[in-house]
């Protein structure tokens, strides 16, 4: 207990002797929590300021270093009833937060300009049909120019920058026609104003920017929300390691602070914090998160062990190492690199639309100008009409069509426990026609559960489970999860490597190995005969029982796989575990297509084969050995319990014990993709109606404004339909 806690990597120090730290806090649910936390911390001597951000569930604390330290603050929070963990913000998150602020500023400027220009424009439109003098109209146009030009130069930056980037890379994206349309509309309007003409398009240009910025901002806000949530989860899950200093003293450090060559103590029941070599101790380790193998591996000094495996029995001392040649991690990283290179760049729907759209629109405008010239119009009139075509086709609706659906779909997925890593994952999820599952930790729950035979008495089970609360052994931990009474028996003693004993109702009770509990030979053999399970023995008042502990299926796995098969998806299980462990799982789920004992390279090969047959593969996996396969697949999902490297490869993560999010992810995405296509069709239909008017030279600024906002609204409302359709059909 005297072990010191070293949190220095999370603390920012100032010169004045004060320090600052951000913590992710769990269990904050109401206004009372804000007060309890802030008041509770402010009362501590040395704390200068504590402020809880309720939206992000994060707490910022400032304190004087000579009076209190970070570990005491976390303890104090624990005392108030909140579990907190220091939080080191990722760079992506900081970048996105700066970008969101910038977009919001652009949006504010565009909104201000749009309102004021529209005020002037409506006066002009009304004046054009009544008694406004030409001088007043010109004044209003000049005023509009004064507002619109600087505003567009500022608020249009996101589009101009992106368009320039795309053109430099010799590509077309949606921002190219947008930037061109806005620039031409403003240029034409300025020219028309200078020549005292009746029509100017300042309002159209600035309104277009406003609508598009709304779309961009909402898109980014949704992404940030999921990113913040995922960041909190990651830091709350983060574990500590016991580092052995040169003098043999133990310090508790965050896993992220471990350096190669650090010596680390791993106690029984703990997760191995980093890859390394064993230097002392002998134990069995559970590597199901690494290789998918559910049988424990016996290890001794000199063995290589991997981050994420669980130490089952004895205390181990290890030396942290960078991935050495020939280790599994190195092979996985090599395969990952290959898989990422080979990954075909899928073209996003929006970019595909832009590639088709931009040349079409620009050719139409050019042909219109030529047509009018041939028909005998003046050069000025021909150019004005051609630019009107560009303005009316400016892809307001098309540019909103896809982000609007993405925002709605990402929000729905978030609520059903799926966190998207990137926006285009939705499109690729929708295309999947084959789902490849890993077994251990994906189809089954990430940690083993007690699975007692039906003939064991419930009271006996409850007693065994409650006694298991006093043990740190992984098998006991699995059993302890079932205890209804969460208070351990008083006076329970753990005998290292054997089990726990306590006195229950005046009788001696034991839980642990078969020898420790004096399990009869017959029972021992029945229990061992079950093959894929380990067992833990329990003895109380002269009676004994063997309780099986095994990987069990996620509670809704059978229903979900059936629903997926019913809707025409092909399911395949590719596992790193033994055939005898995979076969029963595949049989229960009704999946005929399964392969076992695969290495990471074989998993990739299997996926490559499916790809060459024209299948689009969704890979669902959690182990370190699945990471290359996730990268190679068309799209990938991971449970939140997956290994770090694996999570980083996945396009989306899902939460909780259920497999249902996989089903939701596939069907919400399919629906979203259908809506995206529908929206693109709506936007195209709008163009078919409006373009002939523009070519005929009949478009006035009023018509342009109405058409543009009308089509944008239509597309946005259509996107909201996704929510109505799916939330009610739950």
């Amino acid at each position, binding site marked *: 207990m005297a072990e010191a806690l070293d949190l220095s990597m999370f603390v920012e120090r100032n010169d004045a002797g004060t320090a600052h730290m951000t913590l992710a806090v769990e269990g904050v*649910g*109401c*206004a*009372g929590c804000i007060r309890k936390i802030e008041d509770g911390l402010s009362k501590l001597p040395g704390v200068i300021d504590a402020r809880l951000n*309720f939206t992000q569930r994060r707490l910022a604390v400032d304190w004087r270093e000579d009076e209190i330290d970070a570990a005491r603050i976390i303890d104090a929070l624990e005392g108030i009833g909140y579990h907190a963990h220091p939080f080191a913000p990722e760079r992506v998150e900081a970048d996105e937060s700066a970008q969101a602020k910038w977009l919001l500023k652009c949006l*504010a400027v565009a909104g201000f300009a749009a309102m004021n220009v529209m005020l002037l424009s409506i006066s002009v439109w009304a004046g054009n049909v009544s008694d406004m003098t030409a001088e007043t109209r010109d004044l209003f146009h000049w005023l509009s120019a004064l507002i619109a030009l600087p505003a567009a130069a500022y608020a249009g930056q996101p589009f101009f920058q992106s368009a320039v980037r795309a053109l430099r890379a010799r590509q077309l994206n949606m921002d190219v026609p947008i930037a061109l349309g806005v620039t031409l509309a403003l240029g034409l309007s300025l020219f028309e104003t200078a020549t005292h003409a009746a029509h100017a398009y300042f309002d159209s240009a600035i309104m277009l920017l406003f609508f598009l910025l709304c779309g961009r901002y909402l898109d980014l806000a949704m992404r940030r929300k999921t990113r913040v949530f995922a960041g909190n989860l990651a830091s709350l899950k983060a574990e500590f390691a016991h580092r052995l200093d040169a003098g043999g003293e133990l310090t508790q450090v965050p896993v992220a602070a471990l350096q190669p060559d650090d010596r680390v103590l791993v106690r029984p029941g703990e997760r191995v914090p980093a890859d390394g070599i064993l230097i002392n101790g002998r134990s069995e380790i559970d590597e199901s998160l690494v290789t998918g193998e559910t049988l424990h591996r016996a290890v001794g000094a000199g063995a290589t062990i991997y981050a994420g495996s669980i130490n089952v029995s004895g205390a181990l001392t290890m030396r942290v190492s960078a991935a050495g040649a020939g280790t599994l991690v190195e092979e996985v990283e090599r395969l990952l690199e290959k898989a990422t290179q080979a990954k075909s760049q899928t073209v996003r729907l929006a970019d595909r639309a832009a590639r088709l759209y931009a040349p079409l629109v620009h050719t139409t405008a050019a042909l219109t100008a030529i047509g009018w010239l041939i028909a005998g119009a003046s050069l000025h009139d021909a150019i004005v009409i051609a630019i009107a075509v560009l303005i009316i086709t400016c892809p307001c609706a098309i540019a909103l069509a896809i982000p609007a659906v993405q925002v709605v779909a990402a929000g729905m997925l978030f609520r059903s426990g799926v966190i998207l890593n990137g926006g285009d994952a939705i499109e690729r999820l929708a295309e999947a026609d084959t789902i490849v599952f890993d077994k251990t930790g994906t189809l089954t729950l990430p940690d083993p559960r007690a699975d007692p035979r039906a003939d064991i008495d419930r009271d006996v089970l409850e007693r065994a489970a409650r006694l298991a609360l006093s043990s740190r052994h992984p098998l006991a931990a699995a059993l302890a999860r079932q205890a209804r009474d969460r208070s351990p028996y008083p006076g329970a003693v753990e005998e290292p490597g054997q089990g726990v004993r306590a006195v229950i109702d005046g009788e001696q009770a034991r839980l642990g190995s078969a020898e420790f509990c004096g399990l009869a030979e017959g029972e021992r053999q029945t229990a061992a005969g079950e093959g894929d399970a380990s067992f833990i023995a329990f003895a109380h008042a002269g009676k004994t029982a063997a309780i099986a502990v095994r990987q069990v299926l996620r509670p809704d796995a059978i229903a979900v796989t059936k629903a997926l098969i019913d809707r025409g998806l092909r399911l395949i299980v590719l596992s790193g575990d033994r055939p005898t462990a995979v076969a029963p799982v595949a049989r229960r789920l009704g999946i005929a297509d399964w392969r076992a004992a695969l290495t990471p390279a074989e998993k990739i090969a299997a996926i490559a084969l499916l790809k060459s047959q024209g299948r689009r593969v969704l890979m669902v996996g959690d182990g370190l050995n699945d990471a290359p396969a996730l990268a190679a697949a068309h799209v990938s999902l991971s449970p939140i319990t997956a290994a770090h490297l694996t999570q980083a490869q996945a396009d989306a993560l899902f939460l909780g014990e259920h497999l249902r999010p996989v089903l939701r992810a596939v069907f919400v995405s399919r629906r979203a993709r259908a809506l995206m296509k529908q929206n693109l069709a709506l936007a195209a239909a709008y163009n078919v109606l409006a373009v002939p008017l523009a070519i005929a030279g009949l478009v006035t600024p009023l018509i342009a404004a109405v058409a543009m906002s009308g089509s944008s609204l239509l597309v946005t409302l259509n996107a909201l339909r996704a929510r109505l359709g799916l939330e009610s059909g739950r």
Partner: protein
Amino acid sequence: MNVLVFLVPVALLLGLAGLVAFLWSLKSGQYDDLDGAALRILPDDDMPPDRRADGSCSKPTS
């Protein structure tokens, strides 16, 4: 129409004032915690203790 000489600048200035106010509120971090701001008005410190609503949390803090 001479009134326009007044009204147009006044309208513009009002709009600009709104824009500046928004940018200031953005910069001073007022949009960083929208949900929290909604809840922070709820604690009833100004009431005598016996009339205060129970400050306990409805969600379990597991």
